[in-house]
């Protein structure tokens, strides 16, 4: 079976390719935006003598480039998405890119199984009570315009996949990873806190972080790609999750000191109301970076389940404890790039 992985040169994409090879899927076509990303993948392939990796450089904004990438494949794992940029760019690289890919997929003559790497951000968590369980039955976000642009663009992306499946009837499996972490990844999810005016505001308190170590997440994607049921969603979080406070304490002891200001939830919510009101009153003189809606989504605090993922045979490759050890060791060696 030939499998196309989009975003194969990315943080998660590289791990997906490795896990495919580990599962004996040797024919993998790696779609890259930038040829220079192939080097890391070639290193991985050396560990798998049977591997037949193909590399194809494609900008998903250009539909014509996608056709040869999809041709001859039996499965597409779509992991490419925008993580930063202006709203228009993020929609281009998540929603428009996905629509372009879907157009090519549905025009392929052979049946194709499609696996989408979506996000926790697409779920309507702000409407849930605090501490509520977040799982695959959580409804999708109804007010993406009130959330961050990343969540909005990922929601539109996932909706497109369901719309196209409805219309064209291909096999679709959707994964919604929580916070993907590991060596080479970001040091702090916004769920832990934000740097503001040179201080780190610790906003996560005792909330559980929906962490998934990059290799565990990639394993989940591959297990779901190979064994997941058509039309199903699988949330991806690891076992033995830590709280935001535990994460920060461990980061301090293993990586570097962080001067942080803890902000309790009630104060954050009050501050969010103030920021939102001020932003409205001043006609957007300062952006509403905090609003009660965003605060409920990001820092309300929830429980998370990976039972559905386990029901199809996924097990974390490494524990959260070991994942954090590895990530923090790497963070210590390579300081975070300025954002």
């Amino acid at each position, binding site marked *: 079976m030939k499998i196309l992985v989009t975003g194969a040169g990315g943080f998660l994409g590289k791990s997906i390719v490795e896990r495919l090879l580990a599962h004996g899927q040797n024919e993998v076509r790696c779609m890259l935006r930038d040829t220079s990303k192939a080097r890391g993948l070639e290193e991985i392939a050396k560990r798998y003598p049977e591997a037949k990796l193909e590399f194809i450089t494609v*900008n998903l*904004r*250009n539909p014509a480039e996608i056709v040869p990438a999809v041709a001859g494949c039996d499965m597409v794992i779509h992991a490419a998405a925008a993580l930063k*940029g*202006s*709203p*228009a*760019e993020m*929609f*281009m690289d998540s*929603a*428009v890119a996905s*629509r372009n890919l879907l157009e090519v997929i549905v025009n392929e003559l052979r049946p194709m199984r499609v696996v989408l790497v979506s996000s926790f951000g697409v779920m309507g968590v702000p409407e849930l009570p605090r501490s509520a369980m977040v799982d695959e039955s959580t409804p999708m976000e109804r007010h*993406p*315009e009130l959330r961050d*642009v990343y969540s*909005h*663009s990922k929601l*539109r992306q996932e909706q497109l996949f369901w719309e196209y499946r409805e219309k064209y009837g291909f096999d679709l499996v959707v994964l919604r990873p929580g916070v993907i972490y590991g060596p080479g990844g970001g040091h702090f999810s916004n769920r832990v806190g934000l740097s503001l005016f040179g201080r780190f505001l610790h906003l996560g308190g005792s909330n559980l972080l929906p962490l998934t170590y990059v290799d565990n997440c990639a394993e989940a994607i591959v297990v779901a790609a190979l064994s997941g049921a058509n039309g199903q969603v699988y949330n991806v979080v690891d076992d033995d999750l830590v709280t935001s406070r535990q994460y920060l304490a461990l980061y301090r002891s293993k990586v570097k000191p962080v001067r942080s200001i803890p902000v309790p939830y009630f104060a954050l919510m009050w501050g969010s109301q103030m920021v939102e009101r001020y932003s409205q*009153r*001043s*006609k*957007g*003189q300062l952006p509403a970076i905090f609003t009660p809606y965003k605060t409920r989504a990001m820092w309300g605090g929830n429980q998370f389940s990976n039972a559905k993922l386990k029901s199809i045979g996924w097990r974390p490759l490494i524990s959260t404890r070991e994942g954090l050890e590895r990530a923090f060791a790497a963070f210590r060696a390579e300081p975070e790039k300025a954002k």
Partner: protein
Amino acid sequence: MAETRRLRIGIVGCGKIADGHAEVVKHLKGAELAAVCDREPLLAEQLAVRYGVPAWYGDMGEMLARENLDVVHITTPPGVHLPLTRQCVAAGAHVFMEKPLALTAPDAKELIDAVVAGGRKMTVNYWPNFDPPAMEFKQMLARGEVGEPVHVEAFIGYDLAGSYGQALMSDAGHWVHRLPGKLFQNMMDHIFNRIVPLFPDVEPEIHAFAYKRREGVRNDGTDAMLDELRVFLRGGTVSAYASLCSHARPVANTLKVYGTKATVEVDFYNRTVISIASQRYPSAVGRLVPPLQMAGRYLSESKKNIGQFRRSEFHYFAGMSKLLELFYEEIRSGGEPPIPYSEILRVADVMDRVTEQVYPETVAGGAR
């Protein structure tokens, strides 16, 4: 009353800058953002959803036919400005153009002619010239405090690693790379639209040179883009020195006018307008006083800015709000355009001549 009629506004081209237009129009009295359009419907949709715009379209003809728009903001790349303008004018809409107005000065002239022939109005988004410091400087000039301009220095910094810079540096197919003047053409308006109004209406002498300071290691279409531009100009008794600088830090945005009575520096980012203090007292004592005077002037600028902030008049696109207020007012009640068309065309002419000098091959090769 006709004077307070809410204008129905549309936006065509839902890329990055369209956010700025939507944000400004949303808060303007007497205007409502009725519809947005992009040939990529998903982009139109995201802008509409985020700004609560009631309608979005993938086809401008359809938007014009259904929405009865008073004004269309054309925020597409400049290559399609002319045909889109014709279409809007034919539908009875006025147009607010994003810069650069067109690919060449003759195209710019054709665009303005089309608007005039259709009995509609246009202006171009020279918003920094309507920011509070620019407005204050214009008043100083009108009051004669600067005297006659002798020399002008316009400096614009550009950050290739910034959000706009990254968008074009990471994409060799970005439309900016296809402009005859590439990056410069997308930024030069903001330089020359400050110089041209201070020049007499004669054809200026122009000497431009440009180079690439960064190392070209990408081996793609981005490598051809030069990133440092210097231009000397002289028109009658006024000279000017214009820079677009991608490497100096901090990234600055300033205009310094050396007049026969005073020298004034306008800082667009820091929002200050400072008249340079002169030595009025003799000897060493005389040299002690001017820095104190300058400190006092900066302090009073700070106070003014804090006042504006407290009154919620300190937005990033304050100048665009002001320009649109003036433009919409012109549409409602007639009167003079906020930027004379002749001035827009003179800016376009200077830009063409700079491009001819720094990218002779694209001009000769017919890229335009």
